[in-house]
């Protein structure tokens, strides 16, 4: 009976050690994500030139969704460049600019896979560690035919407002798009 009890105690201790080791591994791997997250979120850059970690959510036809690239304003053009792909929007074609905030998960697809594969529900701890806030910049513009487009970008927190100010300074409209469309139709 005593031998059985000690066997169970040993087995329980072993199980506990396995769980503890797994949790430590997960926590350490999460810690590797954390510096990258803070470096993008806590160091907002005032200029667009130093703003390379912009994610194209949707809206630019020549750039893939979720492509990471650089968003700049130069020569009266808003340019997004991700590798070889890129898109230029003349500032004069911009009808409205909106700035919002969103809480999302960093780590991309790899992070999602790690979270799902992590044992003993420890992926949920990663969910908390990997959450990050981003600024959402929505730019409404029209093409030469007058068709309305809406490009959405996710920027490091604190960088969307300076970008908006830069665009307005360059001559972009920042009003409600519906009013501007009515103005175009009834000049």
């Amino acid at each position: 009976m005593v031998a059985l009890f000690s066997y169970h105690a040993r087995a329980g201790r072993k199980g506990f050690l396995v769980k503890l080791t797994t949790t430590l591994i997960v926590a350490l791997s999460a810690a590797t994500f954390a510096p990258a997250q803070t470096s993008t979120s806590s160091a907002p850059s005032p200029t667009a030139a130093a703003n390379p970690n912009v994610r194209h959510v949707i809206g630019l036809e020549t750039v893939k969704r979720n492509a990471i690239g650089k968003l700049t304003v130069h020569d009266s053009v808003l340019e997004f460049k991700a590798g070889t792909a890129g898109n230029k929007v003349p500032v004069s074609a911009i009808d409205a600019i909106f700035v919002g905030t969103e809480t999302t998960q960093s780590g991309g697809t790899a992070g999602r896979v790690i979270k799902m594969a992590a044992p003993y529900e420890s992926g949920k701890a990663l969910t908390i560690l990997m959450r990050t806030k981003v600024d959402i910049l929505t730019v409404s513009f029209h093409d030469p035919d007058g068709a309305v487009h809406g490009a959405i970008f996710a920027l490091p927190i604190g960088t969307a407002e300076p970008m908006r100010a830069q665009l307005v300074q360059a001559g972009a409209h920042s009003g409600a798009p519906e009013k501007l469309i009515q103005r175009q139709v009834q000049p």
Partner: protein
Amino acid sequence: MNSRAAFVFLASFWMLAMPAGIGSAQTAAKPKLSASAIQIALIEAGDIQIPAEFRFAVYERLVQRVRESGAFQKVYRSGDRAADAVPDLVTLHTKVEGFKEGSQTVRELTTVLGATKVDVTASVTARDGHVLVDHKITGRVRFFGENLAVTNDLAKRIAKLVREAF
């Protein structure tokens, strides 16, 4: 024997013909509309507080989904002057009726809470303003993915509705 064979023949004929009849009655009840081009209007929010990125993401995804559906020869965006010359143009209007922004973190931690939901009324109108299609649709993101993923779900449902009608 002959009468029995005739009975079996008639019974089997009736059984085979019946579903076909029901099918034709169903198709007759829902005739497909036809139009060569559609214009996607910007999302109307009305009094509902919905962030601009959600409205524009729904609009962009709708343009993409309706194009992919292949139901129309041409899909025009809102404000496109080229659409003025199309005689049988129909317009897709989407009006937001409700919006509840959830949380991705809460969703992934609890799996039952934190859902993001958008209720809209999608309607297709002809040039004269006559309403051809009018439906209430709800887009949701319940388990995985960021809040903006709700726009993809919504656009998928609206595009399906349009594809089934045209």
